[in-house]
């Protein structure tokens, strides 16, 4: 990995074979995730599997098509840092919606209790709290 840092450019190396293998892998993984989606894995499992496959595909693209495999630290660090902040922005608001006072979520959201949803949709005060 680090043996190229002295000559960070992709000069004079031929990567054609590598590209072909990566392309084949990406195609296979696309077919796999498509196939798996037809089985309908229940609950969170389906999401996890699909996202895991997408992550593998993305990693292949970033490492080989985008040459992060051969390139010096800063470029890798840039991508990794940005991914940390992607995770941050996706998880914390989601955690908020998952843990907040249920009535503070949109009234027809599936997380709100049914009777409260009805009450708010009908523009009436909700029933007394238990």
């Amino acid at each position, binding site marked *: 990995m680090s043996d190229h840092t002295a000559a960070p450019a992709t000069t004079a190396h031929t990567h054609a074979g590598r590209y072909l293998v990566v392309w084949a892998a990406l195609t296979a993984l696309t077919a796999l995730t498509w196939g798996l989606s037809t089985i309908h894995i229940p609950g969170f499992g389906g999401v996890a599997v699909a996202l895991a496959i997408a992550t593998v595909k993305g990693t292949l693209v970033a490492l080989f098509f985008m040459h992060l495999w051969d390139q010096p630290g800063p470029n890798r660090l840039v991508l990794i*840092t940005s991914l940390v*902040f992607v995770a941050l922005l996706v998880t*914390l*608001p989601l955690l908020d*919606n998952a*843990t907040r006072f249920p009535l503070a*979520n*949109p009234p027809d959201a599936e997380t709100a209790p049914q009777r409260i949803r009805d009450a708010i949709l009908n523009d009436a005060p909700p029933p007394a709290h238990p």
Partner: protein
Amino acid sequence: MSQFPDSSPPVFAERNYLNTPATGLKSWLTTLDHKRIGVMFLITTLIFFAVGGLFAMLIRIELLTPGPTIMDAMSYNRMFTLHGVVMIFLFMIPAIPSGFGNFLLPIMVGAKDVAFPRLNLLSFYVYLLGALIALGGMIYGGADTGWTFYTPYSTTTTTKVVPILLGAFILGFSSILTGLNFIVTVHTLRAPGITWNKLPLFVWSIYGTSVIQILATPVLGMTLLLVAIEHAFGWGIFDPARGGDPVLFQHFFWFYSHPAVYIMILPAMAVISEVVCAFSRKNIFGYKAVAYSSLGIAFVGFFTWGHHLFTSGQSAFNAGVFGVLSMFVGIFTAIKVFNWVATMYKGSISFKTPFVYFIGFLFFLFFGGMTGVALATVSLDIHWQDTYFVVAHFHFIMVGSTIMAFLAALHYWWPKITGRMYNERWGLVGATLVVSGFVFTFLPQFLLGNEGMPRRYFNYPERFQALNVASTAGASVLGIGFLVILVYILVSLKYGPVAGPNPWGSRGYEWLTPSPPPLENFDELPAFERGPHEYHDLPGVEAVAPGAGSSHA
């Protein structure tokens, strides 16, 4: 003006960036030289500072009495919106990084220019375009949403919010381009001899700022775009009537806007780290701690945005997470404050104008920072949120700290940028007026907030009037202070004595080159054997004569 009897008389560098390759307006507008672009940024941001300051004065006059004083409620609401938008997006965010940063950062890393000079010029024009669109929106009618653009108010208001959103969106690109340029410059264009541990602290802080600009600005851009789309076409991502969550907007907005506070304060810390060393003539106490804490602020600053949402309906769990993380960002500032104070120990302190601003800065940063941590202390925030306490707190940080640092930078590097000295006596008068005016403007606002006066109030109960009058009185002193500065600094452009390459006897790399610097920054590249904050190795400090940039030994 030179302070050293043994040094040669100061010289105004004959061949400098101001007159090479040409002096015409066209050569400025098409320049790729980072110094000229920096100066153009400085001039434009200062013009917008004047505009924003005018709005601020009108707001303060309006608040002299409860009820209408000089304008009606609608004008008042537009006024504070424009004050916020102009000051934050047009002045505070670009002023130090794009202005002083552009001018100094390449010199400080020993480069001839930034990595991408054309992108740098593009950044300026993008900034100008965004500013013009936003200004157009203001003249065309203005918006009354506050600079925070909270939905659904911003998506339902009948005022002209879309051009201002688009203006801010475009300004974001300028911010991104500049940040990108700086990061690449620091990584790839450091001169031989300038290792990471010999980078000036200014560069470290600007580097941290750039990281935030790169990572946070796109999110704000997308968010503002979504609000504009919602306002124009009704695609409600945040629209509660269509199942949207207005609190999500606040999450997105503060994901940018909390780190944006650090976009404003980190460059101020950058300036102060330079000033405190130069005027104490002392090595920085704990170089690594000060340098790395800049990166720490840049990183941890991203994990705290939720402390703006304690009253918004956010979950108690999230409030806890954001609350405890917010406590950690304070310690990086604490490290810097302690190290700056410790730097003065056994120094040789000279009370020049920049140092007076440093004293003001330290005071305001300390109280602004401590009230910031107090505001993140969840239960206290419930009382203070959206009151004048918050207003006073962030003005302590943004005006008290950033503008003090901006003025310190303006005075400290004025001889480098223009080749001439300002009048030191008037400088001290201006600094005293600004610092004391500032205290009297914003100290009463803390008390107003404690008493419970909400912000963005056009009317207020009469019991709040005394403190409001005090605040307005302070603001007028502040305004006079700025006018004094404007006058003597303009006078010095023509009549100021020639400064010479290093009037302060500073060890910063930028002082190794003549004033004003030549086109490619150094006539002959120094070897940079000494660190930029080292004052102990030679008896006394020599002033480097122009044209002898390499005489560092």
